[in-house]
């Protein structure tokens, strides 16, 4: 059965691994130079060439897509192809039970997927490590590792995603019995899951850190005027943390809007008005500090809920575990479906 699975799988296997190998070669070639650049310069963002930036974002794109593509293109037709061409009637009559047949196919596919994506994600993580979260004097920065966009394409989770996509595709293919519709449905479900998890699940996988701080001149990061007319305050967060919420709370500890008198604290926009306004501005600045201390006296604090950057690996392992557990459930369902329901 191993021989047959390999023989059926051969072309796709070689195609994917060739691409993975090519990607690794390119990353290996450009990686060391980049690492040296980052080591020697703090403002490495300014020094990155557009090629590097392209590679960075390209690496995101490839790793965003690779697990899904591999999983869906390998998973959906795995059984569905045999069902639609009728070859299952040949395979199931050989002296091998359905359970063993599916086990061999799935085992091989899972292994091949995990290894291919594993190699790819290791290479990209290694390559991007020096410049993740790089900032500089230029406008913009590269996303840090913890942000949802980058998180999904670093470390171990892509392997979890790929195995999940593979097993999802297999099960859908089993149920729908047609390869192409199975691919479409699998893609839809996979995308939905990939949107839902960072939004609702990931923040809670590892308990987030909560700090409460006094809003002072030192901690104030910005005052934002929203289109609805309300004002909110944000405070500094360290670079590399994943901010989940940055809110003002009142003396009782509930999330609250700023008091109405606060709008008078705002300095006028820079560059507008006469020198007299400028003088008034300086004095208002002083009054801004006064406002802030008045805020503190009235009990207003800023609460920051965030995942600190050293939570990166725990979050990675937790999420990978989650996806692998889901994959195991899907695998179990696939076996049950094959043995019981496909008659």
């Amino acid at each position, binding site marked *: 059965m191993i021989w047959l699975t390999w023989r059926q799988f051969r072309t796709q296997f070689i195609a994917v691994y060739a691409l993975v190998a090519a990607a690794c070669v390119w990353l290996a070639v450009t990686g060391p130079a980049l690492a040296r650049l980052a080591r020697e310069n703090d403002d490495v963002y300014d020094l990155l060439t557009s090629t590097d930036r392209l590679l960075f974002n390209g690496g995101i794109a490839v790793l965003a897509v690779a697990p899904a593509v591999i999983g869906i293109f390998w998973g959906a037709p795995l059984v569905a192809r045999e069902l639609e061409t*009728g070859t299952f*009637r*040949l395979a*199931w*009559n050989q*002296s*091998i039970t359905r359970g063993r047949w599916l086990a061999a196919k799935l085992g091989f596919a899972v292994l091949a997927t995990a290894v291919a994506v594993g190699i790819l994600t290791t290479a990209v993580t290694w390559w991007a490590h020096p410049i993740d979260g790089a900032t500089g004097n230029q406008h913009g920065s590269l996303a840090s590792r913890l942000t949802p966009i980058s998180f999904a394409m670093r470390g171990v989770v892509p392997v979890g995603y790929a195995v999940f996509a593979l097993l999802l595709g297999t099960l859908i293919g089993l149920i729908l019995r047609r390869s192409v519709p199975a691919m479409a449905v699998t893609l839809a479900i996979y995308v939905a899951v990939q949107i839902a998890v960072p939004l609702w699940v990931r923040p809670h996988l590892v308990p987030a850190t909560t700090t409460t701080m006094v809003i002072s001149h030192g901690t104030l990061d910005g005052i934002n005027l929203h289109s609805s007319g309300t004002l909110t305050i944000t405070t500094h967060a360290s670079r590399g943390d994943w901010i989940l919420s940055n809110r003002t709370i009142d003396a009782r500890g509930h999330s609250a809007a700023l008091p109405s008198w606060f709008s008078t604290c705002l300095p006028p926009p820079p560059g507008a008005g006469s020198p007299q306004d400028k003088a008034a501005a300086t004095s208002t600045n002083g009054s801004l500090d006064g406002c802030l201390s008045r805020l503190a006296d009235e009990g207003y604090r800023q609460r920051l809920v965030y995942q600190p950057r050293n939570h990166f690996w725990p979050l990675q392992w937790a999420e990978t575990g989650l996806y692998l557990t889901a994959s195991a459930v899907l695998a179990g369902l696939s076996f049950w479906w094959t043995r019981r329901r496909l008659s």
Partner: protein
Amino acid sequence: MSAVVTADGLGKRYRRRWALQDCTLEIPVGRVTGLVGPNGAGKTTLLGLVVGILTPTVGTIEVCGGRPAADSAQLAKVGFVAQDNPTYAGLTVADHLRLGAHLNPRWDDAAARRRIDRLHLDPRQRAGQLSGGQRAQLALTLGLAKRPELLILDEPVASLDPLARREFLQVLMEAVAEDEISVLLSSHVVSDLERVCDHVIVLVDSQVRIAGDVEDLLAGHHRLTGPRRDPATLPDDQDVVWASHTDRQSTYVVRTESPILDPAWSITALGLEDLVLAYMEGTAAGAPASPALEVLR
């Protein structure tokens, strides 16, 4: 005599439709059994149940002494050539033989290669490029080389030209002579079955109408032609299978063990095709449908 297939009250339902019902039969070992019936009668369903690709909704079935597809040993006893002769289009003929060798404990590789040679099949050719007849022969080779006790074929020659059809049956019959396997094949073309089968099962509208050794069935059925008569006036020991009347004349196909003594009848013999047609039409025309009759052996 031991039976190679025993079914008791076997039935299979898909959602609301019964594809097969009340199937009780015993197929003796060493026979070439033909399963005949119109399209949609349930032949593929019955064969699927025997092979183990389908599971029964009600009733039981025992094949070669075990439950179909129960385990590897049971699967080794039954060979299957499915409808349309499924093969892996991307794999070569030689690959298919390797497939069989890897997946079957009793695989006879030498015999398989000999067959491929005799059939002039190129081992390096992909199965997708073979003609219909060649694919059928490949599927048959795969089924035979695993040395089963029972070989099942679902409409194996339906889509083949006359020469390919003859060649297929020649290879099949030679294998039966050599290896002494039992064969169960389905067809809706009866004339092929007449030369090849010695046991027959007629399946109409998901039910078994009649089953038995061809010889006994032909000896026990007669076509009677004579002046117009009501079926009720026939003696009790004559079961009417099929009837046709004009204003003056009646023709009956009856089944009986005793001799027919009424001199008014002119009696003619029935061929297998006529017998099967009588059973297929008889139920449609509203003549008293016989329940699942079986010739006990």
